[in-house]
C-alpha cells in the first residue's frame, strides 16, 4: 500500500515527532502547564482565581503538569495502567500533576502562630501532592477552509496511580482529566505549519492514529 493511498498527499508525524513538538511548545510556553492563584500571569505561570469559601476567604493553590509524553496506537508505552486501554485511532499520554495548596490556619511548627494571611508568603508551608497521570484520547481536526485549520488533542479518560479510596480516585481523575484535557487543547497545530510557499494542504482524511503515527491524507491546493 502506498503512503498516499487513495489521496494525493500524506503527512505522518511519528509519536517521537509529536513528543518533540510537545517539548518545544511547553518549553517555550511553560504557562500552559503551570497554573497558580497566587502569582500574576507570566510566560512561566498562568494566574487562576483562588477558591473562595465563606469564613476562610481565598484558598490559594497551584496545579503543575510535567510535559506530557504521547504514545500513538498501538500501545508501546510499557506500563499503561488498567482499566485504560488504547483503542485504534487513539493515543495515550502520561504526565505528572503536582497539586499545591496553601493551607490556612495551620501553625508552622508546634509553637508557631497560626498562618492567617490570605496570600501565601515564603513562610507559608504548602502541602504538595505529586501524582502520576495516564490518559487516553484522540486528535481532533478543526478545518476552517482548504489549507486552513488546526489539530488539537482531546482526552476521553484519565487514570491516576495509587490513589485510594476509589471514590477519591474517581473524583481526582475527573478533575485531572478536565485540567489535562484543557492543557492539551491549547496545543493547536495549525495547518499553516504544514504548508509552504507553493502549496496548501487540503485535509481530506485523518488524523488516523496507527502504526505510531498520526496519519493525515489530503490534496494540494
Amino acid at each position, binding site marked *: 500500500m502506498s*503512503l498516499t493511498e487513495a489521496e494525493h498527499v500524506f503527512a505522518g508525524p511519528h509519536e517521537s515527532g509529536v513528543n*518533540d513538538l510537545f517539548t518545544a511548545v511547553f518549553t517555550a510556553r511553560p504557562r500552559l502547564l503551570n497554573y497558580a492563584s497566587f502569582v500574576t500571569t507570566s510566560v512561566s505561570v498562568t494566574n487562576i482565581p483562588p477558591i473562595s469559601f465563606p469564613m476562610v476567604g481565598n484558598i490559594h493553590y497551584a496545579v503543575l503538569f510535567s510535559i506530557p509524553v504521547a504514545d500513538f496506537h498501538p500501545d508501546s508505552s510499557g506500563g499503561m495502567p488498567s482499566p485504560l486501554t488504547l483503542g485504534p485511532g487513539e493515543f495515550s499520554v502520561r504526565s505528572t500533576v503536582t497539586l499545591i495548596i496553601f493551607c490556612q490556619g495551620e501553625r508552622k511548627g508546634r509553637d508557631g502562630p497560626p498562618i492567617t494571611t490570605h496570600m501565601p508568603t515564603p513562610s507559608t508551608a504548602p502541602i504538595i501532592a505529586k501524582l502520576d497521570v495516564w490518559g487516553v484520547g484522540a486528535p481532533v481536526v478543526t478545518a476552517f477552509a482548504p489549507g486552513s485549520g488546526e489539530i488539537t488533542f482531546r482526552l476521553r479518560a484519565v487514570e491516576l496511580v495509587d490513589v485510594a479510596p476509589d471514590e477519591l480516585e474517581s473524583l481526582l481523575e475527573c478533575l485531572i482529566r478536565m485540567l489535562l484535557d484543557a492543557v492539551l487543547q491549547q496545543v493547536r497545530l495549525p495547518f499553516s505549519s504544514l504548508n509552504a510557499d507553493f502549496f496548501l494542504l487540503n485535509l481530506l482524511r485523518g488524523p488516523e492514529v496507527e502504526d505510531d503515527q498520526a496519519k493525515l491524507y489530503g490534496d494540494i491546493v
Partner: protein
Amino acid sequence: MPDITAAVDEVAASTLLANGQTLLGTQSVSDSGSLGPFNATWGATASFSGGSVDLVPPDVVRITDCDLNYSLNFTLSFDLSSIIPDFCLPRICIPTPFGRICTPRICIDWPSISIPISFSDVVKFTADFRFNVFLNSSSEWQVDAVIVGIPFLQLSPAATAILSAIGLAAAAILAPIPFIGPLLAGAVLLITATIGIAGLTGFLGTLLSPFVSGLSFTVYKQPQVFPVLPASGPFDPAVNVNLDSVAVAVDGSGGEDELVLTVDISA
C-alpha cells in the same frame, strides 16, 4: 522511523509543479558587452508552463512535456567611425572681384549601425532531475535540483529556421578566409544543421544531456529553525523546532511512485 514522513504522488507533484511555475513567474535577464567596434545588448525573458511529473525510483523526478516560453532580443551595433576615419572636405576659398568666397567646411561623421533582432518562441522539453538536500552555510536546508538528463527537447520550425539562417550567415563570412575558411564554414553548417534537425525531431536534449548533466539550481530554502506557532501575546512566545535532518527520495515499493520527504526534528 523518522519524526515526520510526508509523501506526494504524481498527481500532487504535478500540482506542485504548476504552483511552482506560477510562483516562479517570468524570469528576465539582460546584459551588454563590446568587442572592438561591435557593441551588443541582449535580454531574455522566460517562463515555464504545462508539463507533468513522472516519478522514477529511486531518486529521479522527470518533468514531461514542459513548455519553456522564451523571448529574446538582441541588438548588435557597429560604429563605422571606429574603423573608417571621419573626414572633412577642406574649405576652399576663391578670390572674386567681390572679395573671397569660401565654401563651408563639411565633415563626414560615420553613423553607428544597429541591427535589432527579436524572437519569441516555445521550447518543449522533458528533463530528469535529482534533488540534493543539504544544510548550507546559512543554516538553511537547501533543496537543489540537479539535472540528470534531457531525454527530449524540441525546437519549433521557426527557431530551427533562424538557427539555419545563422549558420548560413556564419558560413558565408567564414568561407572567404584563406585556407581554413571552407573547412570552418562546412563545420558550422554541419553543426547548425545537426542542431536544427535534432531540435525538430526532439533529439536535441539527448545531444545536450552530457553538457548540462550535473548542473543544479536551487528550488527551495527552509531555515533550520522551523516556526511552528507564531508569538501570541506577551506571554506566549513563538514556538520553533529544529530540523535536524531532511531527506528526499522517490519510492515505488507501495505500488505507486511517490516523492517521500522524511524529517527529524528536535525541540
